């Protein structure tokens, strides 16, 4: 973040430095409370991807790719997909695909409730967020190599 030539102006960089953590935190909140309040894995994952995209737009692609490289994004995405599938397969413990295998569902309106639904939300968030960030990163990199 020291390089003044890359990215946008100082105003944008200062505002980004203040807001990008809050955006990431809001995404995590939306994901973890997906079974209690509106939101869920998809929206939260996209918000988390947007925080990294925000970083990339303001500071240039090197800074954002140092935080989360394209290979790491691919690995995270595959991990999310595998986790979702694993949760689905673990349902065979109770009898069928996607069986909600926590017998004690917890109290409603609490964070740790609803069995597999928060776990599925986390898996979908990893998959969607990392996947969309990888698409954006690859488009930016491709454009950069195209113009030179």
């Amino acid at each position, binding site marked *: 973040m020291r390089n003044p030539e890359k990215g946008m102006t100082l105003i944008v960089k200062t505002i980004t430095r203040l807001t990008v953590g809050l955006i990431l935190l809001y995404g995590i909140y939306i994901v973890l409370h997906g*079974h209690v309040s509106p939101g869920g894995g998809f929206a939260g994952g996209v918000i988390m991807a947007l925080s990294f995209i925000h970083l990339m737009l303001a500071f240039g692609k090197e800074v954002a790719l140092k935080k989360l490289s394209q290979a790491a994004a691919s690995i995270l995405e595959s991990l999310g997909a595998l986790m979702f599938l694993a949760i689905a397969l673990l349902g065979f413990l109770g009898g069928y695909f996607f069986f909600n295998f926590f017998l004690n569902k917890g109290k409603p309106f609490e964070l740790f409730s609803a069995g*597999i639904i928060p776990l599925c939300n986390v898996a979908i968030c990893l998959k969607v967020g990392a996947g969309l960030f*990888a698409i954006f990163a690859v488009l930016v990199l491709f454009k950069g190599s195209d*113009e030179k």
Partner: protein
Amino acid sequence: MSSLMELQLLLLFMVFAAVVAVEIEDLLSSVIAVGAVGLGLSLAFLILKAPDLAITQLVVEILCLIILIRATIHRDLTLVKDGRWFFNTASTLLFIASLLIFAYFALRELPRFGEPMMRVAKEYVGRGLEKTGATNMVASVILDFRAYDTLGEATILFTAVMGVLAVIRKVGRIKNEKS
């Protein structure tokens, strides 16, 4: 009934913005008009009391807008101006007319707006909380009752990302002879 009128005003705004997006010359203005359509759709979801969809629509719209702006802002795409305008207009009118005719017969069979058929949904809404423990009914439907559909949707997104990463990659690509 005031919320219904808000919804209709919003739909009018969205139709207007969509027409602007198609007809305007400047690509960047066209992308902004597409964003206005998405914002209107998000507000429409909010009026219809679907905050999950509103959040998702807003966020995905922002992401698509960023990608579209970065894709279009430096490109000069040539627009096809002249062509077989008589054939184009006639075929467009023909397809619009056939769509309207079939929609007239098909849409009569749908349940009226605001009076849905609650055959399966009655079970989900009535017993969703005690069966899944999730207070967000949408989450309990998409991740418990209908999780198989969500798996399919996740697979589609996974395949799309893999396809993009495979097509626009740097590793293993044959180098251009000039560079």
